[in-house]
């Protein structure tokens, strides 16, 4: 019997296969290949796939990966933007530009009930996210009968996301059952489902915030200019720095927005997205700031703080992405 070796120092420094002609792939090369593989599996097995496109940096990376996965064909699915009508103006501009450049169909959905009732982030609090985003998404998926939807969520964002599968199964009412997820072996994905059920697929699950930034830099991917610092009109609300992006922002009597050099780490509805004061105007500077910061990316988001630390999980069970 061969002697066991333990605690004797480097285990793999030598070995016949250590030196081969090939060089080992970098982590970004592996993550890129994994994401492309996932997208192709969905296209091969799903009946009606769609890509959720939120115009943020993660969506930008996901769209870029889709173009790589299917080149020289354009990605064989449409982009879907579940719009709340409260995004930053610069987001709408980039959205339309990217749809044009990629040659993909862009579907925009606005929940008609939320529109009719004038639901907005100033007067309706949590109801705003619930009706425009969660309900809007469910209605859009039902209306176009999409059975698989790509999302740009990452496991490093939030603790319930860290537990979610890459192929995340949803019931006919779009619910997620975190206690009963399908096993997911190797990179063999089970995409089978009954009529009415759907799958949310997260191709960049294993990417970190730093990976996303570095990939954007290396691949020269266009992103919304709001990620870079510039002087912008701001007001303070509940300890958050908000940007006054249009004249719908209710100011207190006599209140005048202050010009501050700010940028955003994540982008959502402008009245709900906190800015950080910054002078980082290039990608390198943004990455530097990200690495040296002491707070997490989602810290500026109101959604994670509901329901005693289980905010995101609860929202996902109700059908949120």
């Amino acid at each position, binding site marked *: 019997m061969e002697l*066991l*070796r*333990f*605690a004797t120092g*480097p*285990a*793999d420094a030598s*070995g016949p*296969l*250590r030196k081969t*002609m*090939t060089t*080992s*792939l*970098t*982590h*970004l090369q*592996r993550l890129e*290949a*994994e994401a*492309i*593989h996932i997208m*192709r599996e969905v*296209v091969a097995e799903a009946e009606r796939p769609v890509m959720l496109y939120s115009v943020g940096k993660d969506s930008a990376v996901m769209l870029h990966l889709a*173009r790589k996965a*299917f*080149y*020289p064909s*354009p990605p064989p699915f449409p982009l879907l933007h579940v719009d709340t009508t409260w995004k930053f103006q610069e987001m709408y501009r980039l959205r339309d530009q990217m749809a044009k450049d990629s040659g993909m169909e862009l579907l925009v959905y606005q929940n008609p009930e939320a529109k009719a009732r004038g639901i907005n982030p100033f007067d309706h609090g949590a109801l705003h996210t619930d009706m425009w985003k969660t309900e809007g998404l469910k209605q859009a998926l039902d209306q176009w009968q999409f059975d698989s939807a790509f999302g740009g969520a990452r*496991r*490093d964002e*939030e*603790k*319930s996301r*860290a*537990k979610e*599968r890459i192929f995340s199964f949803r019931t006919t009412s779009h619910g997620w059952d*975190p*206690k009963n997820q*399908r*096993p*997911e*072996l*190797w990179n*063999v994905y*089970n995409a*089978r*489902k009954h009529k009415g059920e759907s799958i949310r697929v997260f191709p960049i699950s*294993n990417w970190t915030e730093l990976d996303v930034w570095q990939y954007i830099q290396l691949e020269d991917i266009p992103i919304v200019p709001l990620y870079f610092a510039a002087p912008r009109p701001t007001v303070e609300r509940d300890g958050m720095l908000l940007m006054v992006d249009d004249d719908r922002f209710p100011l207190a009597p006599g209140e005048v927005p202050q010009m501050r050099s700010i940028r955003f780490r994540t982008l959502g509805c402008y009245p709900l997205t906190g800015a950080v004061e910054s002078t980082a105007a290039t990608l*390198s500077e943004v*990455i*530097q700031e990200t*690495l*040296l910061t*002491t*707070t*997490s990316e989602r*810290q500026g988001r109101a959604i994670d703080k509901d329901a005693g*630390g289980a905010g995101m*999980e609860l929202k996902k069970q109700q059908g949120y992405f």
Partner: protein
Amino acid sequence: MSDTYVTDTLIAEDIDAYLVQHQHKDMLRFITCGSVDDGKSTLIGRLLYDSKMIFEDQLAALEDASKVSGTQGQDIDFALLVDGLAAEREQGITIDVAYRFFNTEKRKFIVADCPGHEQYTRNMVTGASSADAAVILIDARKGVLVQTRRHTYLCHLLGIRHLVLAVNKLDLVGYDQVVFDAIVADYVNFAQAIGISEFTAIPISGFKGDNITSLSPHTPWYSGPTLIEHLEQVEIDGTREAGQAFRMPVQWVNRPNLDFRGFAGLIASGTVKQGDAVRILPAGTTSTISRIVTLDGDLDEAQAGQSVTLCLADEVDCSRGNVIAAASAPPEVADQFEASLVWMSDEALIPGRGYWLKLATQSVSATVKPPKYAINVNTLEHLAVKTLELNAIGVVELTTDKPLVFEPYAQSRTLGGFILIDKLTNATVAAGLINFSLRRAQNVHWQALDVSREAHAAMKHQQPAVLWFTGFSGSGKSTIANLVEKRLHALGHHTFLLDGDNVRHGLNKDLGFTETDRIENIRRVGEVTKLMSDAGLIVLTAFISPFAAERDMVRAMVPPGEFVEVFVDTPLAEAERRDVKGLYKKARAGTLKNFTGIDSPYEVPLRPELRVDTTSESPEAAAERIVDYILGARSEAWMPTI
């Protein structure tokens, strides 16, 4: 972490230099596993904390949560950081795998924190299936436990080649070397018994941080690597696979226009260059690589781990599920295998039932024989079993309806690992690992027949059909089938009626009425039916055939449109009232077991081609309608049922 300062300085002073360094890091995927409460989550919390992957707002939230539901008194409970589900924090246990990320100067890491409870084995296997290394934790106070063995066994089974035995909570035993050595000695015995030839043992305290990133002053007797040092230099599997023969399972055929046809896939092993000779499996045709296409331009060469699109020099047949491989060293093709299975469903394995099998990009129907044995992972005993229950590990033989391109799992995770999917619920019910093929498909060429099934049918001036009557015992299947056959015969057609009772007196007299035997009964009848329809006959069968999966199995055996499911829909109460053969009476009295409708289920056909309601339609009228359908409507108005 000892190098944190250096890294921070570099980030602050020369971000571009840092980014270049970071960009060239490779990536190791590892898991932490072991028994409940051995400190897996705490260790991961420690790794994240030490590599500064925990932000201030997260730390503040963690401190608050630790006071409310922590298990470490006033100290920070790192486990709360990793247990991300509400149910987990409530119960203080890990249910599902959590994926966490950190990096050091040398490497980026993805760590999957696996649950320790046996109940959640399928989640542990999910995490382990894609890992290059495993850190198996042991509580120094408890030593090697059942779950330590179970997880070690599973890690080895799943082909994780780098095992680290982290003897944890050493602070609680006074950093005693005697305790450490005794645990290692105990583990060596088990490891050797299951064929593990190498592992690395490290004494640690995840809670206190001993030997995690720097050698601890409390263990002067230990001179090996720290946990992080070790993980920084473990060989990554992708690197090993790059040195093997070229294989790429085809995911998708890219056809933007008539001038381009590319085959998209993730290279499983080896390298490929323009001009390389390749073979397309299972067909075995050969061609050469003309282009390796990517959005960033054509490549001269690509290697394992890359997603590419390959173009071939010849117009050969190639589609999803095929494997493009080095022409000189192609993988095997077979349709019968011995495999190890980890059963993951609450519903036990049903031998003989058809399951979907997915291996790389190939999807086929497979049936599993009764297990050769199951393994008691604690004692390593081989247990005689009839089935595999939830979390059981066993060795089985299985048969696929189409040949699979494969390699033994020990050689290739991609071409040797598969999942089984329940055809009705769509649940993933098992993870499978191919050990070897039982016979090569190349050796069982179908006898090429000069007189084709079309020729047989043409001679008889009819279109073959399978009329499959299903329904409760006493529903009237045989009566109606008889009338239909008489009528077809009178009209000059060539028919044959297979009846449940008759078949059981001959062909299937070795079978009883258990679920497994009933499935085998139908499988054999299906095969006979298929041969008879190949001969050009219109075949009628009258079997209760209670399970949808088996009816669908026979449907899949014959060409589309030839299978006509006739649901003889007599309510159970009515069939029991008639009780032509007196069987219901016996079943009710308990002298007849496994009787459909009484103590065995009947799955109602959801989309039968024809349905006969015997309470409102006479057998003669039903027979007439069925004959009309077979001879007229079917051939004109037949639509595929989806």
